């Protein structure tokens, strides 16, 4: 039994290719692959533009030779020590957020659901702000004795906050079906609990802002909008490690998403343990959100919108994981570029740009789709 075949079938509006070798088969959609390749190219272009742009514009030739270490000393230094890590953080944070949003939306089957809405981003904000205010008296980010401490402590605070928030949302949002039945998640309830937790955490963040002195409050306010200013290699390794660990888990569990998409009872009959898969996927998504916030602060709207854009581009019935991650990267790269170039002499926080662009887009999506649920 060593049959090989490639079959193209129409599934709804789109084309599906099935490759089979023996009993193993791989399904993929040519359109999804093409869109993902195009998105990857876009990310590459934005990546180079992100390195080229700045107070000193570096020509594309020099960008490439600077990356390879063959340009003059200043260019190599600028490219490799300052701009490259920043752009890398943008790519990784975008990918983490896009993937996290895709997982949460796929599990809850709810287009509003994203770590932002579920209160996890707000939890990360609270954790980061509390640490920032505790260490804020020192010259954070610009050298100084405790700078290194707060470079580590703020991300840890953000991750801890994200996990506390996630734990609350999952514990309270979960419901026991009855005697002997396993714990499952009503997606409505999770979203509801998330919105409530979001409001509570943001209230506490505001309280934190009011208690510090104005310098600390300014630093916290900048961090709170999400900023890539002064990001170095230590931020890159943080997000990269998280992605390396969580991405394989996400892709493995992601295979079960198709079963979940049929509805929880059907998935259960197919032998998928619904609750365990849901918890696993939520945990991966919230881990990604926490690390992203640790590296760049809470950048809003990417996790919410990237999967929707990717879904529209690929026209798949489910939520495309890889395309969502690539869309997220492209969004953060583009937003950071815009944040640096929009007002000469002023660097806006990247999260302000994602919100200023993302919110109207979401509005347009909702208005265009009208009252569809």
């Amino acid at each position, binding site marked *: 039994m060593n049959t090989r075949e490639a079959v193209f079938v129409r599934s709804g509006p789109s084309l599906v290719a099935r490759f089979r070798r023996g009993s193993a088969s791989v399904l993929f959609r040519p359109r999804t692959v093409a869109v993902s390749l195009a998105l990857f190219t876009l990310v590459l272009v934005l990546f180079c533009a992100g390195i080229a742009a700045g107070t000193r514009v570096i020509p594309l030739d020099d960008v490439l030779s600077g990356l390879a270490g063959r340009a003059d000393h200043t260019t190599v230094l600028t490219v490799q020590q300052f701009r490259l890590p920043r752009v890398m953080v943008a790519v990784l944070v975008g990918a983490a957020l896009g993937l996290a949003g895709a997982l949460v939306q796929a599990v809850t089957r*709810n*287009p*509003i659901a994203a770590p932002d*809405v579920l209160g996890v981003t707000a939890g990360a904000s609270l954790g980061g702000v509390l640490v920032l205010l505790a260490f804020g008296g020192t010259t954070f980010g610009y050298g100084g004795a405790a700078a290194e401490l707060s470079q580590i402590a703020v991300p840890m605070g953000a991750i801890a906050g994200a996990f506390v928030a996630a734990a609350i949302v999952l514990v*309270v949002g979960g419901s026991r079906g009855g005697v002997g039945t396993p714990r499952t998640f*009503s997606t*409505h*309830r999770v*979203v*509801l*609990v998330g*919105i*409530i*937790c979001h*409001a*509570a955490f*943001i*209230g*506490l963040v*505001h*309280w934190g*802002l*009011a208690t510090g002195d*104005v310098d600390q*409050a*300014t630093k916290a*306010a*900048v961090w*709170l*909008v999400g900023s890539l200013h002064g990001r170095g290699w230590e931020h890159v390794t943080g997000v990269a490690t998280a992605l390396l660990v969580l991405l394989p888990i996400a892709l493995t569990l992601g295979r079960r998403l198709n079963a979940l998409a049929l509805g929880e009872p059907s998935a259960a009959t197919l032998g998928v343990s619904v609750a365990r898969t849901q918890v696993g996927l939520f945990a991966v998504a919230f881990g990604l959100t926490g690390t992203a916030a640790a590296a760049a602060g809470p950048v*809003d*709207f990417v996790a919410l919108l990237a999967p929707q854009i990717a879904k529209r581009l690929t026209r798949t019935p489910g939520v495309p994981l890889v395309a969502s991650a690539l869309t997220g990267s492209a969004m953060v790269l583009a937003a950071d570029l815009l944040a640096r170039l929009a007002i000469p002499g*002023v660097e*806006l*926080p990247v*999260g*302000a740009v994602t*919100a*200023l662009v*993302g*919110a*109207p887009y*979401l*509005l347009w999506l*909702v*208005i*265009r*789709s*009208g*009252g*569809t*649920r």
Partner: protein
Amino acid sequence: MPTPSNSPQIRLAVGALAVLTLLAVTIAFGLSVGSRALSLSDVLGALAVQGETDASIIVWEQRMPRTLLGVLVGAALGVGGALAQGITRNPLADPALIGVSSGAALAIVLGSFVFGVSSLAPQIVLAAVGAAVVGGAVLSLAGYGRGGMAPTSLALVGLSMSALIVAVISVLVLLDAQTLDEYRYWLVGALAGKGTPTLTVVTPVILAGLSLTLLAARGLDALALGEDVARGLGVSVNRARLLAGAGVVLLTSTAVAAAGPISFVGLVVPHVARAITGPRHGWLLPYAALLGASLLVTADVVGRVVVRPAELQVGVVTALVGAPLVLLLLRKSKVAGAGP
């Protein structure tokens, strides 16, 4: 309560008396609890004669305006939430969700950033305009689609509009440290340090808003049965929506201008009130006013006590108490209700 009583009207009237007593007790606490605790007889004595004693000065100049402001803001938020839920027929709708609070906040920040406005009367006018513009925009955009106003699209529109406004606010605030410094104190939601001047501006506006909403009660009752039924009953749906919408804008923007964005009161209070009164707005709205007032004054008192000698702002207390309360209610109820 679900058990039908023989005479629900009498039961509700007795209940209203109980809620009024609750409010009176919380006001008494509001006047007597603080960094210097006063006994009830001290308070009563100070209330009887407005003299030069310490107790008299504390009660009349500090705690009385603060407590009355708490009563008015709490009533405004409770009724505003009940109206917002009534118009949208969405149990999650509170003034924050439909963007009214963030519209008022944006107007206040813009006023401070562009014109340097920091006195209350123009701030309230600005806040009302901002609340009306943004709230109206959210409601009309959410209802623009073919399918009418689905709860999901309302939540999405409100969410994205609020996020947009918060982004604009944070850019403005980052460009100007002075605005940030004013904004962050206002942001937490506090009743402290707002003296009699605030009260004189706020009182007529909120009282007007509250009486306006009583006119909307019957229309909202009809609307609760669905738009078609309401039209069949001869109720002008648009008039009811307009009256109630004006009420939401007036009450919320004044409350937000006076005390900052205080979360959860507008969401929780109408649910508690509805559990007592049932869906009739004629009873629901007064109950929401009384319960909202009691809740906010209690939260203010709690904030004064828990971290003595410092104070926890009332907005922080409502977030800390309100969130677990809502979560508990959700946990008890078997169904999550109509979520987004």
